């Protein structure tokens, strides 16, 4: 009898232990999986941070755009050399990462926004609760903006892979002789800039259209002492930046509100309640333009001029 009771006790104990072990094994497996995920995330972040700490650089692909005809500017001055050109503006996107429990509110008037920040602590009725909401400046990142200008010459071409066989003066002459032959596609040469060291040259033609004609092919025959060499030809392109400006974004009409964590309500409802509260002059507010609240998930909020 005692043996049986003892047995049952031990069986129960062992069963309990077995169940505990199984649960532990499940937990360890789960934790191992979680740890692996964490390690992967950490590695990704470390790589990202390494990239970012290299010298401030912009490295971007520029989106393609369909171009439409706008106008033609006419000039009677035939000697004015016109280039094919391209220009565009690049500006940093300034944004704020809105975390859970935060909201952004934009007022119509700057003074109202500054006043709301000066008051600092506000008590907003959300549901049955009088929530303490703190108003502060929105910290914004620095950005850069500039214009890019590209000019493709219609009168000049860039020549490379010129053999290093002759002294500078002579090679310049050979280049002019080859490139002025119309039966080869060339035309009257205005001038030649030859750089022996880099095996390259810039050739300027007298008339428009010659450069385009030559550039239809990737190379051109250069004759030196009865031997024909093929040199590479490419468009002569000049690119430069204008109006380069580093700036810091500052928000004057938009205010950051914090303290909205854990509210069990629809984001839109909370936005409405916040808007109503801050519209009232007696609450220190005024006309409200926009309210965006983050409760369940973070958002990236863009700031514009």
């Amino acid at each position: 009898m005692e043996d049986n009771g003892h047995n049952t006790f031990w069986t129960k104990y062992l069963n309990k232990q077995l169940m505990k072990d199984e649960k532990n094994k499940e937990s360890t497996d789960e934790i191992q999986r979680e740890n692996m995920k964490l390690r992967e995330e950490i590695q990704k972040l470390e790589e990202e941070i390494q990239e970012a700490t290299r010298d401030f650089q912009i490295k971007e692909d520029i989106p393609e755009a369909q171009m439409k005809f706008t106008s033609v500017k006419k000039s009677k001055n035939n000697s004015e050399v016109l280039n094919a050109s391209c220009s565009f503006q690049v500006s940093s996107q300034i944004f704020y990462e809105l975390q859970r429990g935060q909201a952004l509110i934009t007022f119509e008037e700057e003074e109202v926004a500054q006043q709301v920040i000066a008051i600092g602590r506000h008590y907003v009725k959300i549901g049955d609760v009088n929530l303490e909401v703190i108003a502060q400046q929105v910290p914004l990142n620095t950005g850069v903006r500039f214009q890019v200008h590209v000019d493709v010459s219609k009168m000049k071409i860039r020549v490379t892979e010129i053999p290093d066989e002759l002294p500078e003066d002579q090679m310049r002459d050979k280049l002019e002789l080859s490139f002025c032959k119309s039966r080869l596609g060339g035309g009257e040469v205005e001038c030649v800039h030859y750089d022996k060291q880099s095996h390259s040259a810039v050739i300027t033609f007298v008339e428009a259209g010659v450069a385009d004609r030559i550039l239809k092919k990737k190379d051109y025959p250069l004759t030196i002492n009865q031997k024909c060499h093929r040199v590479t030809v490419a468009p002569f392109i000049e690119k430069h930046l204008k109006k380069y400006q580093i700036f810091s974004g500052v928000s004057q009409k938009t205010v950051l509100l914090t303290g909205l964590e854990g509210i069990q309500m629809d984001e839109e409802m909370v936005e409405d309640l916040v808007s109503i509260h801050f519209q009232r002059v007696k609450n220190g507010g005024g006309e409200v333009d926009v309210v965006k609240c983050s409760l369940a998930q973070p958002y990236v909020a863009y700031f514009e001029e």
Partner: protein
Amino acid sequence: MSVILDDVLCTLQEEQTRLKMKLQELQKLRRELRDSTKDKVPFPMPEVPLVFRGHTEESQEVPKYLFSNLQMCCPLPGSSALVTFDDPKVAEQVLRKKVHKIDMEECRLLVEVQPLELPSMTTIQVSNQPDGQRVLVSGIPSGLELKEEELLDKLEIFFGKARNGGGDVETRELLQGSVMLGFAKEEVAQNLCQIGQFRVSLGGQQVTLKVSPYVSGKIQKAEIKCQPVARSVLVVNIPDVLDSQELHDILEIHFQKPTRGGGEVEDLTVVPPGQQGLAVFTSESP
């Protein structure tokens, strides 16, 4: 066995706590590094007022730069005409024949047709480049009744004087809310930055201007390709037998004829012989 498992579980849990802490640290560092320019540019920068208008995105993959004001230009030779069609397919069809015969009352006009190619940039790499000879002049009030040239002139005069701490100005550029001045001598630029603040008379008022080092930008790499314009066609080598208005009408009639492979013409501009034209194209999307 369960004791060992307990230990293993404990170790794993400790490791997870450590990993979570490290993750949080790195996330904080990445947030701070979004301001990485602040570290490299340790002096006051011009402030640009910005406003939140409700534009939000859910993803963390934020495109960092906005590209706008895209414009491309192409020179047009004399004795040519630029024809822009409503439908890109019509342009394609017109380009299939290199030579077009245009019927007129008493004779035929033989003209050549070719596509128009525009240069565009596909990728760009730009980096900051501190420039010892240039300074940024900021604090210019926005309500000034001065035109660009006038403002630049007045600043060049003031900062060109040795008695103000300045010197010969080589370059100048109006930026948004501030001005960049480039001096012939680096010492002059450095001296002005050291002084920092200046009282200058602008537009009838006394204004306090700040001078700080200017960081310039440099293109490290850029890829440029030429792309044909979809809806436009260039007509060249037009014989000089008609005046511009007549030529315009005759060409338009010819290129509108579906029987000649043409279609609705959106625009037709003639460049008379002996003149030059510059065709301007802007981006289709706003």
